[in-house]
């Protein structure tokens, strides 16, 4: 798995914090929510990195901070050798984008979770897909319609539908429009933020297959965010498992699924149903007890110890660092040698 070429994307100790004001006006308490707490990961050119974890673990925020849609509170994001997290400017009482970040949009794009929220309801499909082309003056008026129709064909939609509005499409078709929009600028990196979680199971497979095919045909580098391993394992080369803002395990996709080391990953793997009723019934169950801890009030020591089935005394005190246990396999757990 060694690769001498520098990675397309390097994320170093990324931290994203939000100020949360509890209700109560002047008496409300101002607290800090650490959504992403020191994520360290890199994505090589042409690779798909899966990012899994339960709701609220900070995986979407990680994706947005990587694309600088959210300003990182600390840490570094190096895209193609350039430290893009430094490209924010403070002006008029808020953080705003430098023009270099705007120019960078051509090279990194996002596929959003809910296509009915991420497509402007007042725009036709043609206007939606022409928007990125217009932003970067990539095609003149007459050329643009052709480009838009070509994009629709790439994602498997009828190019005659360009006059339609998002609400006239099904959920799966809308997500295809979202994918076409992300592809319009021919980016190097695509962050797909749970692109299938709002869809029917039968449609999920279609979208995952579409993404896998596009990834191969167009040589995309992708960060695929999802909350279930079953979706991610099909498209990913490597998988990073996130828990409470941190990566707890990172390895090749098949290793994560066949030989998980972290107890949290083991629980995630055990949660994937096997499509064979006899084996499914015989399979050992590993169900986590309790709620995930709140990122507003994270537990001391290992953030997973409150629910960990194999916790020890020192897990309550020390937080385990992410360390390499085998070639290309990193785990953050005291109990793994």
């Amino acid at each position, binding site marked *: 798995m060694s690769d001498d070429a520098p990675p397309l994307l390097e994320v170093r100790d990324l931290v994203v914090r939000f100020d949360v004001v509890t209700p109560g006006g002047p008496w409300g308490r101002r607290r800090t929510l650490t959504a992403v707490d020191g994520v360290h990961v890199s994505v090589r050119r042409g690779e798909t990195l899966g990012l899994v974890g339960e709701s609220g673990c900070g995986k979407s925020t990680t994706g947005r901070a990587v*694309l600088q*849609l959210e300003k990182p509170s600390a840490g570094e994001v190096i895209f193609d050798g350039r430290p893009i997290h430094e490209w924010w400017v403070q002006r*008029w*009482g*808020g953080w705003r984008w430098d023009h270099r970040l*705007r*120019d960078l*949009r*051509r090279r990194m*794009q*996002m596929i*959003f979770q*809910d296509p009915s*929220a*991420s*497509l*402007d*309801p*007042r*725009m*036709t*499909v043609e206007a939606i897909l022409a*928007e*990125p082309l217009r*932003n*970067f003056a990539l095609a003149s008026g007459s050329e643009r319609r052709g480009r838009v*129709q070509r994009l629709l*064909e*790439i994602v*498997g*939609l*009828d*190019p*005659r*539908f*360009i*006059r*339609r*509005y998002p*609400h*006239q499409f099904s959920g799966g078709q809308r997500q295809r429009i979202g994918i076409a*929009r992300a592809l*319009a*600028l021919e980016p190097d990196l695509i962050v797909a933020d749970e692109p299938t979680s709002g869809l029917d199971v039968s449609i999920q497979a*279609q979208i995952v*297959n*579409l993404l896998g*095919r596009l990834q191969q045909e167009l040589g995309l580098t992708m960060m695929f965010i999802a909350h279930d391993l079953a979706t991610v394992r099909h498209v990913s080369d490597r998988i990073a498992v996130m828990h409470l803002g941190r990566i707890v395990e990172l390895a090749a996709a098949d290793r994560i699924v066949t030989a998980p080391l972290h107890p949290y990953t083991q629980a995630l793997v055990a949660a994937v149903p096997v499509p064979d009723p006899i084996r499914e019934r015989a399979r050992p169950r590993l169900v986590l007890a309790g709620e995930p801890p709140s990122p507003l009030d994270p537990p001391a020591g290992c953030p997973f110890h409150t629910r960990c089935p194999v916790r020890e005394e020192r897990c309550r005190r020390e937080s385990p660092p992410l360390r390499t246990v085998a070639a290309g396999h990193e785990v953050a757990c005291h109990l793994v040698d």
Partner: protein
Amino acid sequence: MNVPAASGDGGATTLVAGSSLWADAWRRLRRNRLAVASAVTILALACACLAGPWLIAATWGHDEQSQDLASGPRPPSWEHPFGTDFYGRDLLVRVLAGGRVSLTVGLLAALVAATIGTLYGAVASYAGGLIDAVMMRAVDVLYALPYMFLVIILVTILGKSLLLVFLALGAVGWLLTARVVRGQVLSLKEREFILAARSLGTPAHDIVLRHLIPNVIGPVIVTFTLSVPSMILQEAFLSFLGLGIQAPRPSLGALISDGAGQMLVFWWTLVFPGGLMAVLLFALNFLGDGLRDALDPRLER
């Protein structure tokens, strides 16, 4: 993956028409009988006010300013359906011409107000932070000043003319629209499609013009329709005070003002301009309500 092949006949394919949110709103509006009746009434009255004075001048030979001191004031008759006023001027022509002035002032002032207010509110809200705070405090200060007082000062300083009346009304009337739009944009800019637009590299002015304003245009149209009657009333009030339209030109406000002084003797001089005003205001309000319901899809079952 089954990817449908490219549309066989290349560029000559017929495009499938979409039903826009506008088409849906239009469909809902058409189902609202009161709103449709109001729209028809407004159109009919507007046509009458536009063409009426000219037709009457061509047929009977008197316009809104031709006096006949010997034949006034007379009650309604076949020759003068609305009667004549103190100077023997035909009241029907004067009411229609006055309605034309009132409608023009109302529409133009409301249009000025809606345009300024929408741009101002959207920019303030999307920029956020310090810009928003400064811009909206300016609105608060203007809002705190007595509205009519401001218009009266403007009209007194700048002189009395039709153009100035609606400019003054519009320049003060945008405050409400700005607040409405700012509130809408505040919730709109947290929606994911705005984040998506930013991630596509859409510059801020395009986000305001192409995403935010089209999505707030519903509430703006409603505010606009409901502010036309209020603008007409303001103009009437100004004319009533003698600051608006100057005699001998008629406006509904000036006519009502004249009529109110003699309503016990020459009732028709108040009833006809007052009646037209009332009908216009009702119709505009009903249409505004209808538009609000039609443009807000959440209300649809």
